[in-house]
C-alpha cells in the first residue's frame, strides 16, 4: 500500500537512497529524450522540434493514469501524495518569469543538470545564474512576501474546480494532448530546420 516511505515510515537515509535512484531514472529519461540540448528544448517555441511537448505531456499523462489506476486498485492513498499548494498570483507571476528564463536561457533547472552532466558549458552558466537568482530572491524576499503569500487556495485539484471526476479530466487532457501532438508534428514539417536537427 503506497506511498511506501510515509506509510511504512522508512528511515531517512533509505529515503535519500530512493531519491538518488529516482534521480538516476529521471536523468536517463531526460537525456535520452534529448533534453540535454538547449536548441532541442527551444525547438518547441520555433516549431522545428516539438520534443518537449511530446515528452512532457506523455510523461504527465502516464503518471496521471498510473495514479488513477493505483488509487482505484487501492495500492496508493492519494490523501498522502503531495499536491502543490496553489497561490494564485505567485504561481502566475513566477511562471511568467520562468517562461522568460526558459526562452532566454534555453534550459529549466532539471534539464540544465542533465546538460551539464554531458559537458554543456552553457548549462553550467545557467545553473550559476539560477543560484544568483535564488540568492536575489532570498535577499529581497520582504519585497515579494505579500505577493508570495497572497490568496492561498491550498492543494486544490483541477478536477474538483471543474466539478468532474479525475478519470474524465484525464481523458479530456489526453484528447487535447493528442491534438497538440498532431499539430506539433505538422509544425515540425512546416518549420523544418535541417541544419539544426543534424547539429543537435
Amino acid at each position, binding site marked *: 500500500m503506497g506511498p*511506501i516511505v*510515509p506509510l511504512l515510515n522508512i528511515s531517512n537515509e533509505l529515503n*535519500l537512497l*530512493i*531519491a538518488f535512484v*529516482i*534521480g*538516476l*531514472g*529521471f536523468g536517463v*529519461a*531526460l*537525456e535520452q*529524450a*534529448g533534453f*540535454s540540448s538547449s*536548441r532541442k528544448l527551444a525547438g518547441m517555441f520555433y516549431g522545428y522540434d516539438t*520534443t518537449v511537448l*511530446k*515528452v512532457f505531456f506523455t510523461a*504527465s*499523462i502516464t*503518471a496521471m493514469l498510473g495514479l488513477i489506476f*493505483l488509487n482505484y486498485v487501492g495500492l496508493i492513498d*492519494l490523501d498522502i*501524495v*503531495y499536491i*502543490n*499548494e496553489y497561490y*494564485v498570483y505567485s*504561481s502566475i507571476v513566477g*511562471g*511568467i*518569469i*520562468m*517562461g*522568460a*528564463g*526558459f*526562452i*532566454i*536561457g*534555453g534550459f529549466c*533547472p*532539471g534539464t*540544465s543538470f542533465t546538460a551539464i*552532466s554531458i559537458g554543456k558549458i552553457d*548549462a553550467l552558466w545557467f545553473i*550559476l*545564474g*539560477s*543560484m544568483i*537568482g*535564488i*540568492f536575489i*530572491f*532570498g535577499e529581497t*524576499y520582504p519585497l515579494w512576501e505579500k505577493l508570495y503569500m497572497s490568496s492561498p487556495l491550498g492543494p486544490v*485539484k483541477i478536477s474538483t474546480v471543474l466539478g468532474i471526476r479525475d478519470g474524465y479530466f484525464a481523458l479530456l487532457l489526453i484528447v487535447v494532448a493528442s491534438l497538440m501532438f498532431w499539430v506539433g508534428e505538422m509544425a515540425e514539417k512546416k518549420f523544418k530546420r535541417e541544419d*539544426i536537427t543534424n547539429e543537435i
Partner: protein
Amino acid sequence: MENKVKKPKNYMNPYLAGILLGMVLLASFYLTGRGLGASGATRSVVVSAVSTIAPTHTANSAYFSKYTKENNPLKSWLVLEIAGVIIGGFISGAYAGRLKLKVEHSPKITPRKRIVMASIGGLLFGFGSQLGRGCTSGAALTGMSVLSLAGFVTMMAIFGTAFALAYFFKNNWI
C-alpha cells in the same frame, strides 16, 4: 587508422521517453508520495553556501531561515535526486556517445553571447522558481500528474510566456 568519429546514437523516440519519464514519476509517487523536483536542490545549495559564509545573516533572513531548520540543507531529498540526475544523464550521454565539452549555440551568435544569455535565463529561472514554488519538473510536470491546479497554471504561464517572447530571441536559436 581507425579515427572515424563514431556518430552519436540519435535520441530515443520522444513518446517512449515520455512514457519512461512518466513511469519514473509514478515510481516516485508510489515510493515516496512526492513527485520530482529540481529548483529545490539549487536552493538547498544556495542556502548551505549562504549559511556557511554568513550564518547569522541566514538565521534572520526571512526566506532562508525557513530552509535552515534541519542541520545540513544539502542532506535533502531533492539534492540527492539531482545528484542522481547528473549521474543518470552522464550514463545516458556516455551510452549514446554524446559526451563532449562544448558550448551549444546557434551559428548566428558567439559562444560568449550564448553564455551571457544562459546566465541571464538562469537568473530569471532561479528567481521565478522560488516565487512560483517549483520549476517545470517540480511544479508543472509533478503538479499536472496529480491534477493540481497550481501545476497547470504554472505550466501554462511558463510555456505561454516562452512562446510569447520567442520572437524577440529568435536569432539566439535559429
